[in-house]
């Protein structure tokens, strides 16, 4: 039947990642020689490399071959499309894609369907007619940070947003979620500046320096990714405002965790890329085995700060268990 | 002067100023229908400026131009062409990647079906225009495959295509041989007979007297005289041009015994084959030959500008081991190239900078250029070669050709060069400056420097050389000592056997 344009936030045909085994039973054994193709945005950001690690680790465990490719940069839409098409032509059994934009991988849906290859949209941008989506909600990233400020800065204050590349889906969504939540609170918190950082550490550093000088009483920054957040942290340190100005990132890359532990970065919205990769791979293989996987598989994310980092990332922490516990406790 | 005769072209009060120079000051010029009119003046007198205004490239500050009694404002090259004025520019104005025919019809393409260039018809017409000048030039050959002389002929043929009322020729023969000039002269006579007016700019007095009936002489951008050439002499015209009598100098020899340069078996493919000769201290060695006989290439090889495929060059008995211009310059060899604009000058840089270029290490003993010393020395040398205008900080591209040439000569004097290689040293250079350059060459020789002069002008070789080598098809065909020098002797050796037999 005709699919409706997908909105991962509101789609009712959904399942939480932790329910996959419960609802669908144990993981079926993939046929020998199964080949999985995966195309992500770019490998220059650790987030996408970690996602790939997730694919590979589960793939290895189950003995399937995974080809993991990425475009040269985050703007290379046509290049990413070519890569995906080439994989279809090559005849992979299932295709995992993380599109650059909502539109740029649209053509592969038809091509893959013709070739009988299931396509799973993993994270970030959403192909409207995607039959399957695995990932978190981008908007929710910003919302979570906004809620932290609302809860932890009751006396209010000035906030600033460092945005990712102008016009990129994830950046737009995260910023919008943050701003809307702060605005809806209508309280003493106020976003006084929202400036482009283009996913770039140096630009973000410069922007933050300028903003700190303009608003020395700023209470916090929300950055659309961790790379930018780590640049902002340096600017804050340089202005001797560490501890006074909270800085949040997004993604949950290794360096962000290190910085949180060191007491510099206040927090990051971790979307657990390795786990997401594993979940996506599991979903893809289940779909390949013709199991009735719902259209949306929601993956976890959590706001990680110094207070809870050991719980998620500490030595010997069982991330899956912790996150399942979060689900049970309704976090 | 028959002032009642109708004027084809009448220019009055024409003034053009450039920053720091008045190139034309109230210049006037009058040319009758069917007249071949020489425009004479020293380098920098303003001839080309006048011609450029006439062809719509430059706009005058003041003054009027009337053609057949009608006053014109020439806003663009196209407007000038529409007014029946065709132009042969001093600097070749061609597009290397396009063919001969495409260049000749550039900006006025013949069309087929209104949309496409009619190449066939263009090429037929181009061939027709080229035929009386040089039938060997193929209209479909790209310009870049042609030699300078051929390119100049294409430029002339292009002007003939226009059926113009006035054809202005700015040094059309600077790269041509005497025989090519003869053909041009015949073409000019034919045009004049049909009532076309020709303005002929040249520094070659014999050509002027051969082709032109009247002459306008200018100096420092001003009108000096309008003469009937039949009633005057070369000496008188030159005197008017330079403002004084030019003493006719005789050849002076300063040859010493010591050999400074020995070339043995020097070769570069088929362009230069097995060239061997010696050059002595204080000697002026002429090299004659037809166009394409390999003279330029020989000089470039000696100067290290091109790679040799065989042979040796030794200075003072020490062979040059390393290739390249630097080694040659270090050994005391300097080249004054044939194509100044392409190989000689760095156009945007000042005259001083151009003079000092090869001597930078000397002017910067501790790595930092000592500007005062450099300027003082370069300035002195430039004054010595009589640079005009004496503004050493002007970009060199703003100087006239003769003055650029003086700059290049000063460059090698500054570099302490012992062996100077002149390739067509007086091409496009006025008669006064020519005498100065001859004087310079002789003074250099008298100071114990050695000189090689490549020239297509036989009188120049006869005037300067202590000895002449004649090149033919890349080989040195003959060596003529001063006693045996004559135009006939040189020509006899320069012409290939095949042609002589015919």
């Amino acid at each position, binding site marked *: 039947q005709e699919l409706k344009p997908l909105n991962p936030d509101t789609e009712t045909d959904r399942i939480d990642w932790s329910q996959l085994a419960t609802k669908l039973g144990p993981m079926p054994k993939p046929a020998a020689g199964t080949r999985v193709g995966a195309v992500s945005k770019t490998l220059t950001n650790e987030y996408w490399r970690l996602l790939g690690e997730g694919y590979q680790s589960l793939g290895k465990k189950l003995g399937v071959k995974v080809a993991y490719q990425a475009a040269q940069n985050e703007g290379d839409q046509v290049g990413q499309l070519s890569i995906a098409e080439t994989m279809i032509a090559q005849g992979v059994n299932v295709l995992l894609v993380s599109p650059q934009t909502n539109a740029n991988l649209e053509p592969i849906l038809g091509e893959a369907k013709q070739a009988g290859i299931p396509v799973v949209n993993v994270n970030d941008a959403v192909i409207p007619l995607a039959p399957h989506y695995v990932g978190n909600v981008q908007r929710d990233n910003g919302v979570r940070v906004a809620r932290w400020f609302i809860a932890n800065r009751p006396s209010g204050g000035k906030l600033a947003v460092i945005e990712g590349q102008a016009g990129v889906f994830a950046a737009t969504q995260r910023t919008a979620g943050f701003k809307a939540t702060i605005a809806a609170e209508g309280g003493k918190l106020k976003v006084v500046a929202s400036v482009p950082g283009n996913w770039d550490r140096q630009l973000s550093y410069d922007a933050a320096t300028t903003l700190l000088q303009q608003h020395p009483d700023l209470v916090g920054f929300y950055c659309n990714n961790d790379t930018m957040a780590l640049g902002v942290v340096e600017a804050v340190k340089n202005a001797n405002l560490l501890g006074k100005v909270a800085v949040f990132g997004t993604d949950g890359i290794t360096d962000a965790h290190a910085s949180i532990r060191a007491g510099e970065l206040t927090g990051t919205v971790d979307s657990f890329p390795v786990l997401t990769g594993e979940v996506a791979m599991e979903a893809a293989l289940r779909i390949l085995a013709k199991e009735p996987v719902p259209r949306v598989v929601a993956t976890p994310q959590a706001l990680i700060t110094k207070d809870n980092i050991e719980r998620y990332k500490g030595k010997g922490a069982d991330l899956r268990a912790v996150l399942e516990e979060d689900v049970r406790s309704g976090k | 002067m028959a002032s009642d005769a109708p004027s084809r072209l009448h220019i009055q009060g024409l003034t053009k100023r450039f920053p720091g120079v008045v190139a034309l000051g109230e210049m006037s010029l009058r040319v009758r229908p069917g007249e071949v009119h020489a425009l004479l003046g020293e380098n920098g007198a303003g001839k080309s400026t006048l011609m450029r205004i006439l062809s719509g490239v430059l706009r005058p500050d003041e003054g009027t131009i009337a053609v057949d009694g009608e006053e014109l404002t020439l806003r663009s090259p196209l407007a000038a062409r529409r007014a029946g004025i065709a132009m042969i520019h001093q600097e070749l104005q061609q597009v290397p990647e396009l063919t001969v025919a495409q260049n000749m019809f550039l*900006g006025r393409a013949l069309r087929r079906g209104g949309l496409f260039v009619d190449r066939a018809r263009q090429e037929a017409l181009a061939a027709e225009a080229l035929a009386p000048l040089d039938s060997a030039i193929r209209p479909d050959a*790209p310009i870049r495959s042609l030699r300078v002389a051929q390119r100049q002929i294409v430029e002339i043929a292009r002007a003939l295509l226009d059926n113009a009322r006035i054809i202005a020729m700015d040094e059309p023969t600077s790269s041509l041989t005497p025989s090519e000039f003869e053909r041009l002269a015949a073409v000019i006579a034919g045009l004049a007979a049909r009532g076309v007016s020709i303005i002929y700019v040249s520094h070659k007095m014999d050509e002027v007297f051969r082709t032109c009936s009247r002459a306008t002489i200018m100096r420092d951008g001003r009108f000096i005289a309008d003469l009937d050439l039949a009633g005057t002499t070369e000496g008188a015209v030159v005197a008017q041009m330079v403002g004084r009598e030019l003493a006719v100098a005789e050849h002076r020899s300063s040859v010493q015994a010591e050999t400074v340069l020995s070339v043995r078996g020097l070769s570069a493919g088929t362009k230069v084959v097995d060239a061997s000769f010696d050059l002595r201290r204080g000697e002026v060695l002429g090299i004659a030959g037809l166009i394409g006989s390999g003279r330029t290439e020989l000089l470039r090889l000696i100067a290290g500008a091109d790679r040799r495929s065989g042979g040796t060059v030794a200075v003072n008995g020490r062979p040059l081991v390393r290739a390249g211009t630097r080694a040659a310059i270090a050994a005391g060899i300097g080249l004054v190239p044939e194509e100044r604009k392409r190989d000689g000058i760095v156009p945007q840089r000042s005259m001083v900078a151009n003079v000092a270029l090869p001597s930078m290490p000397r002017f910067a003993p501790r790595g930092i250029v000592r500007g005062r010393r450099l300027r003082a020395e370069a300035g002195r040398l430039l004054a010595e070669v009589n640079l005009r205008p004496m503004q050493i900080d002007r970009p060199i591209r703003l100087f006239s050709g003769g003055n650029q040439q003086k700059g290049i000569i000063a460059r090698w004097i500054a570099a302490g060069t012992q062996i100077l290689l002149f390739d067509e040293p007086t091409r496009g250079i006025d008669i006064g400056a020519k005498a100065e350059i001859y004087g310079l060459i002789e003074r250099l020789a008298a100071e114990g420097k050695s000189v090689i002069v490549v020239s297509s002008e036989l009188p120049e070789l006869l005037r300067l050389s202590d000895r002449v080598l004649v090149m033919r*098809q890349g080989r040195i065909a003959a060596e003529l000592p001063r006693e045996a020098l004559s135009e006939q002797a040189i020509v006899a050796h320069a012409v290939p056997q095949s042609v002589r037999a015919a």
Partner: protein
Amino acid sequence: MLTLTDKAAPAPGATTRLRVPLRDFGTLLGLVLIVLVFAVAAPGFLTERNLLNILQQSSINACVALGMTLVIVSGGIDLSVGPVAALSAVLSASLMVAGVPPVLAVMAGLALGAACGAVNGALICFGGLQPFIVTLGTLSTYRALALIATDGNPIFGVPQSFRALVNGNVGGLPMAVVVVLVVALLAGLILRKTPFGEYLLAVGGNEEAAHIAGVPIALTKIGAYMLSGLLAALAAMILVGRLGAAEPILGNLWELDAIAAAAIGGASLMGGKGSILGTLLGAVILGAMRNGLTLMNVQAFYQLLATGLIILFAMLIDRFARGRA
């Protein structure tokens, strides 16, 4: 009578006739080498389906690169092709979504592309600015306009009729490939057979000579940038048809791919030289490379490495095949 020249002038016709294929020989050699390497290293590379796939994937870059070639021939450069494509895509898609017939919407988009090009050309000619810096400025400006016009959101809902047309086949070839071939033929015709083509070569080869010969310099340059804008817009139409959406950030870094294709194809960034066939081959080289590396499952960082090295090697092969002159 003396003969004028010593050595008989080398029969020039002979060399010119030979030179036309020779000019593109180096590029062809590069392509053949790359195809050979991948044919051995990447199974599935040398199948008909994959080769068609490569052509289709190269078509968008080829289309942009053809316009770029004309600009480069005229002695300029156009860094703004990507944003121009985005603006046109956004306009056409909005019109189609609003119900305007696709033909009209596409024409509007193409016209907008040409207009953007005209602005570039006018700034260069009448402002007397350098092409690199003008199009660097409009690169930001046009992109910003596209983002502002759409608020950064893609425009969805391009009619199926239009998409079917663009994604169709003509005689076994994908429509995009056919369109690009037609464009290439036209560009070749313009460059080699029309006065305008001569003007382009002349302006790029020797602007002063062209001026003196009465070539309309400004019109010629503006024309080149308009064609570049037009072809960028055409590439955008193909892409909109393929994606079914128009994005304001479409065309990111297209300029570099297009310049690389033209340069690999033998265009000189000094102007006055460029080959339509060469540019097509250059675009296919880049496309084949990306395709082959993906088939070989080369990791992205190594793909980037290969891209850089292949550009350098293609240029070196070309250089030595053509002789160092």
